[in-house]
């Protein structure tokens, strides 16, 4: 292995075509899923799981969008009777909960689970059964929320579920329980994805892909995975333990009458809730870089700056949560610390945008749909960033807080800052997933209608908020004069909906009849383009040895690859964390039904816990049985073979 480090391979090791075909057939036999429906249920292939994750999350985007359209219909004119307060409150809560917990976070995780292994040259994620388990848990959560909504048990206290409104006294029944336990499923799924992405990134990179060479998308996913590991436990403590226990077994965490504290919830929730925004936003920034690089035909300017911006954003993100609480009686001096931190976070974000702009300037950008979405992202997101800086100011926030100004701000940030790049990413990577290109003409219609729709919907909300319209109101009185701007916003929502319909049509048409993409349709630089589209079950026949940040743009005559992994059984290469030196060969788990079984047990545990605490014991007991099956299967063929480290002379 060691001669590979300098990026050159002795000539006698060059592969012949016959050998390649033979290897491909052998690998396919080892890595493919079981046939039929059983194979669908038991798969542990990160591409299968990633794809269904993306599709499910996109369906949730549609569901949340339908809820948004219902709200915009209700608010289109004053004292409209389309939705009553009870239904409106369920719909806006489900909209927020869906978009945050069932669309945005899972979608960003799914993009990571699909593409990180391809980008780092791995055959799969590090813990494939955990990956399957995460998806099934997420799916249980999706079904749970929407069944609840249709049986009139939809949560109705907002996606933030502030106590005491969400407590047992003011929200009897099971609606808030549904919310509290739904969050649990997202927590499990996100943690499973985060652990997988961290370990895959640290231990399964192609030889030579040292930490300072990994693609920025992978950096973003890595940083965000660490954020998930630190943020999710906060909301798990808050919702799954404290709130659920207050409601189910009469603990008094949040009840001031019994020595509890209503503000405690807000601290716990926002300690998760603010990083959550960056958990959604940073992966989207990671998608921007490869698109800018590819279509500007330039290496991105300031790789190191972009990496440091990611890391510093992640750090600062944990020091901002009190800016959601400037209207509470927290001392002014404490608040000003959070003001300063909130403004500080604009610096790394700004630097990233400057880097992309100069990269574009230094090249000749091709304005494909993906690239247009990047421009649309900057256009829209910068507005959200600037209103974010304004909201960091205590005196300004005390006016704008909890109004439509804030609604406008976070939709600019999330739709503009996260969904717009995500749309670009769909156009960019769709060929890798399906083997066909999306249609560019429909794509441009999609782009223009989407960006115009977002701005038409949300810009008027800034003015409404400053004019005194609070958020989360099911109606408003005519004399307030808020009718016309609300109507404009509702028309904007219609424009967004049209653009999404065009996108779906585009996907449907292109999936069947789109232009064939080939391995690398954009002449891009990342490893994911070094394998056919769609990637085979084993991802790479032979992983490239990486010698720079842009392996496919390297001007090398011979492209050295990794050989020596078993063709007869699932085997993956583990490499060292910093320099990606080959470390060991590991047996990789086979497909298994147990992740699905354990996920269903989690469903019994947490959904059942709403009705009786005994379900927790029963569900965990059943899950325990499944964990035996899970571990048993994967250990019977386990193997782990160390690779001797190259001696010092060779490395030098």
């Amino acid at each position, binding site marked *: 292995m060691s001669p590979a480090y300098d990026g050159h391979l002795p000539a006698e090791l060059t592969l012949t075509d016959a050998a390649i075909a033979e290897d491909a057939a052998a690998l396919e036999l080892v890595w493919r899923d079981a046939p039929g429906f059983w194979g669908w249920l038991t798969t542990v292939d990160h591409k299968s799981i990633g794809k269904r994750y993306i599709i499910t999350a996109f369906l949730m985007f549609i569901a949340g969008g339908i809820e948004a359209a219902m709200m915009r219909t209700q608010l289109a004119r004053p004292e409209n009777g389309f939705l009553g307060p009870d239904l409106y409150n369920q719909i806006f809560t489900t909209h927020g909960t869906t978009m945050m917990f069932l669309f945005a976070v899972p979608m960003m995780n799914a993009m990571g689970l699909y593409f990180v292994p391809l980008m780092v040259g791995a055959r799969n994620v590090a813990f494939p059964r955990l990956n399957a388990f995460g998806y099934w848990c997420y799916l249980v959560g999706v079904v749970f929320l929407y069944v609840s909504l249709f049986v009139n048990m939809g949560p109705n206290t907002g996606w933030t579920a502030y106590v005491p409104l969400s407590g047992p006294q003011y929200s009897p029944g099971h609606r808030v329980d549904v919310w509290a336990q739904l969050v649990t499923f997202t927590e499990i799924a996100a943690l499973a994805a985060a652990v997988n992405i961290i370990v895959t990134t640290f231990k399964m990179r192609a030889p030579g892909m040292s930490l300072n060479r990994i693609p920025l998308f992978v950096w973003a996913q890595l940083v965000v995975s660490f954020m998930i590991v630190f943020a999710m436990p906060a909301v798990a403590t808050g919702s799954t333990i404290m709130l659920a226990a207050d409601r189910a077994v009469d603990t008094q965490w949040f009840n001031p009458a019994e020595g509890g504290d209503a*503000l405690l919830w807000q601290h716990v929730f926002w300690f998760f809730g603010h990083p959550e925004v960056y958990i959604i936003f940073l992966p989207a920034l990671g998608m921007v870089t490869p698109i800018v690089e590819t279509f500007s035909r330039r290496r991105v*300017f300031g790789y190191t700056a972009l990496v440091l911006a990611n890391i510093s954003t992640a750090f600062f993100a944990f020091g901002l949560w009190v800016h959601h609480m400037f209207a509470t009686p927290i001392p002014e001096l404490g608040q000003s610390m959070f*003001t300063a931190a909130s*403004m500080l976070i604009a*610096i790394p974000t700004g630097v990233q945008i400057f880097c992309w702009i100069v990269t574009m300037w230094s090249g000749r950008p091709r304005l494909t749909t993906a690239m247009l979405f990047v421009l649309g992202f900057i256009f829209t997101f*910068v507005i959200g960033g600037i209103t974010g800086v304004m909201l960091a100011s205590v*005196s300004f926030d005390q006016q704008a807080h909890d109004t439509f100004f804030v609604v406008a701000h976070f939709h600019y940030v999330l739709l503009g800052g996260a969904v717009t790049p995500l749309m670009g990413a769909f156009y960019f990577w769709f060929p890798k997933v399906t083997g066909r290109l999306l249609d560019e003409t429909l794509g441009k219609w999609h782009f223009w209608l989407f960006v115009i729709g977002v701005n038409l919907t949300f810009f008027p909300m800034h003015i409404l908020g400053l004019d005194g319209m*609070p958020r989360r109101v099911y109606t408003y009185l005519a004399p307030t004069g808020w009718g016309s701007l609300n109507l404009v916003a509702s028309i904007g929502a219609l424009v967004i909906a049209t653009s999404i319909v065009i996108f779906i049509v585009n996907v449907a048409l292109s999936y069947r009849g789109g232009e064939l993409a080939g391995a690398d349709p954009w002449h891009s630089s990342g490893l994911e383009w070094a394998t056919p589209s769609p990637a085979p079950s084993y991802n790479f026949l032979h992983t490239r040895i990486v010698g720079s940040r842009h392996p496919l743009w390297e001007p090398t005559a011979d492209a050295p690859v990794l050989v020596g992994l078993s063709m007869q059984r699932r085997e993956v290469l583990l490499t060292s964390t910093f320099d990606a030196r080959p470390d060991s060969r590991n047996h990789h788990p086979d497909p298994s039904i147990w992740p699905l079984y354990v996920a269903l047990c989690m469903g019994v545990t947490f959904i059942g816990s709403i009705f009786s605490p005994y379900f927790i014991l029963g569900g965990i007991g059943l899950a325990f049985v499944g964990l035996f099956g899970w571990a048993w299967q994967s250990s019977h063929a386990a193997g782990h073979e160390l690779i001797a480290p190259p001696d010092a002379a060779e490395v030098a």
Partner: protein
Amino acid sequence: MLGVGGVIWLIVICAMIYAARSPHGEPGEDGLLQVSDATHHAMERVVVGAGIVTVVVLLAFLSYDFAVGEALAQHPNRALTIDLVGHQWWWEATYEDPDPSKRVTTANEIHIPVGQPVQFKLRSADVIHSFWVPTLNGKRDLIPGYVSSQWFTADTAGTYRGQCAEFCGLEHAKMALYIIAEPPARFAAWLAAASTDPKPPTDPTLRYGQQVFMSANCAVCHTIGGTQAMATVGPNLTHLKSRRTIAAGTLANNAANLTGWIVDPQAIKPGTLMPKSTLQPAELQALIAYLETLK
């Protein structure tokens, strides 16, 4: 702030469009992928320069914010103090006075003197609410278990509308309040009138109306000064007719709306804690006639 923000946005967007459309890009030493040293230095200068400008603008914002924050944090030594309690879904205001008999309690409409600081002591009776009159003050939450404070001075006489800003359940949308700022003399006259109880009715219809009030569950929740009705679950009705609106800013306060509200409050504000009435027409008429006298 809005202006500076707008200018920054415009500069960034112009730079972006220029970068995306400019014919600058040219093959460097290493094909298209590598830029020339001169270009690289130019890029460095732009990013570092823009970064420095960002830091300077943010520091300016921060200093400005701290200055405003400090100014807002100055408390007056003496102020009229009003206890404001948030309920699902209305506001209860009590004017503090060392003499308990002079304390005035009203709902959803707060009279204040122009040009004098007014302090609000904010509490909640149930869930979190937020007190906000956009023209006069920033928000302050009313949180169970906490007493928070806010003060402001109205410089101009007028009626200012505000609305609960923190989602508080079913009728969060219909929880408005009005601040009525008036010259000190008029305010004093209002306060004096508000602290006297209405005279017991003498007219037989009105007396019947009062009886209906006492016997038909109204008195279980409401107070009318000088009568046996002393409950505090719902708004104090002692001077009901002195208010411009009913149902927390939802309806104009006239006999027709009041009748509709009493007959079926759930149709106007679904979920409000006030139940539907089962009064006979004669009882209802007498009740309305009586309530209309509570000036």
